[in-house]
């Protein structure tokens, strides 16, 4: 880890992020959704955990996952990393610098969205751990795809399923009404649902499942990283 390089990339990509409309507008999506959900339903009732989970899922998939994916894809497409990557260490510096940018932007956007919703969520250890693990899963997924794709256009092929399956998981309730349906049963093991369960009180099992998801994400990212470094050395 080379802090100087991480900061150089952080600074450069922060500039790029704010000047790239495609990336910057993603930070507005969770906030806009928060405004939408705030006005739905009876005013006095508390926002259900499922809605909050949808906002979090949206923020994580559209900003955290998609931005780092797009940023890496653009570097791949324009070959701008060619002069910079000389070793796995410099690649790690680049990924860390970029991750810091997207984590920061996601944090700001999600924070504002939760403020708008005036959501009452429990900030206990379980809740925070769930947020971190969920973030780790989406970030790893974004990095893995970003390392693999050759152009920005291809990212959308990966992004749409990721958003639908992992980001908006609780939306399944509006499509499949029957709770015992197989799709609903499977969906309950997806990461965003674990956050709902933790907010509803059960912690141990959902956290364990989240750990597995985060680990899977990291394994995928590590595999993509290794593959990419092999290609670089050819």
């Amino acid at each position: 880890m080379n802090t100087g390089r991480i900061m150089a990339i952080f600074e450069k990509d922060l500039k790029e992020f704010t000047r790239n409309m495609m990336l910057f507008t993603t930070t507005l999506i969770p906030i806009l959704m928060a405004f939408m959900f705030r006005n739905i339903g009876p005013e006095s009732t508390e926002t259900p955990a499922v809605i909050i989970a949808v906002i979090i899922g949206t923020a994580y998939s559209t900003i955290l996952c998609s931005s780092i994916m797009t940023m890496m894809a653009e570097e791949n497409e324009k070959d701008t990393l060619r002069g910079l990557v000389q070793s796995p260490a410099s690649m790690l510096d680049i990924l860390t610098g970029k991750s810091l940018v997207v984590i920061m932007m996601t944090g700001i956007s999600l924070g504002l969205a939760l403020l708008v919703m005036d959501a009452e969520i429990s900030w206990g250890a379980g809740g925070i751990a769930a947020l971190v693990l969920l973030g780790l899963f989406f970030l790893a997924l974004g990095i893995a795809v970003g390392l693999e794709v050759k152009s920005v256009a291809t990212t959308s092929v990966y992004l749409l399923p990721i958003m639908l399956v992992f980001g908006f998981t609780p939306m399944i309730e509006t499509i499949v009404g029957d709770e015992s349906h197989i799709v609903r049963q499977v969906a309950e093991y997806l990461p965003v649902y674990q956050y709902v369960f933790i907010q509803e009180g059960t912690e141990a099992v959902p956290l364990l499942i989240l750990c597995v998801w985060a680990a899977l994400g990291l394994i995928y990212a590590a595999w993509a990283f290794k593959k990419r470094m092999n290609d670089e050395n050819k």
Partner: protein
Amino acid sequence: MREIRIADVIDKENDQSIKFRSGVSSVIQMPVEYIDRVAELAFKDVHILENTVPVYERLTVKDHVRFYKKWNKSGLGAADMLRQYKLEAVSHTRLALCTAETIQRLAYIQAVMSDRQAVLAVNPLYNAGIENIRLFHKMMEQMAQGGKALVVITSSTEEAFVISSKIARLSEQGLKEVETEMPEERNSQTSLKRIKAKAQDKTIFIDLEDIEYIESNEGKVYINISREKFIIESTLAETEKKLADYGFYRCHRSYIVNLDKVKEIITWSKNTYSIVMENQEKTKIPLSRTKYSEIQELLVM
């Protein structure tokens, strides 16, 4: 000191190598295939400088230089580099709106600021304007001062000579310094590549390359140029001596032939051979038995 083995580039036995010496720059001209090979073989921590560099379109020129500085922890000042490479006017322009010339200067700056001590420049002046060629020289100076090792490889001899007056050439035979004096001498001799002949009362000067063959006949020496004959006033032996360096060959006691104009050799019988000239008449000139194998060696590379 780092080096790239020539044997790996030309795929032939060779014990030479392209050396990266600190503070030294060298220029090598080579065919395009070798350029690709050398760029491939360049070790991991050599900075490769090309005639352009991929850039971030949304960032400004200044953003780029600052990024290069930070990434490489370069001691060179960003503002100073912008000034030295004449980029002050465009320093706040986004790269999407910059000219190829500006991007090329960024490539030079990136190479100077790189934390890698060895730089391989591949056809760096391709498409470069006069100003950028000057800046390339400035870059070379800065690299030498910074103790960097620079090797420039280029496919064009003219480009190589623009970069340095002392260049080497890489060919199948290996790495050789290009002698700069010789070609000039040869050039000055081209005007002398003529021979004096007589046609009636006129003295004419015949270009050597127009001569097909020279024959001696009854004590007189004739120059043959497509269907015409001119007498010259020297013996065949003297002429042979004079022309030996210009691709002429004494193929027979009474004949000297211009090797450039030989089309084929015909074997009539065991000891009789003819040289067929490359002209309309397909003139056949005798070839001595003793010269038969020697001329064949001269005719092929």
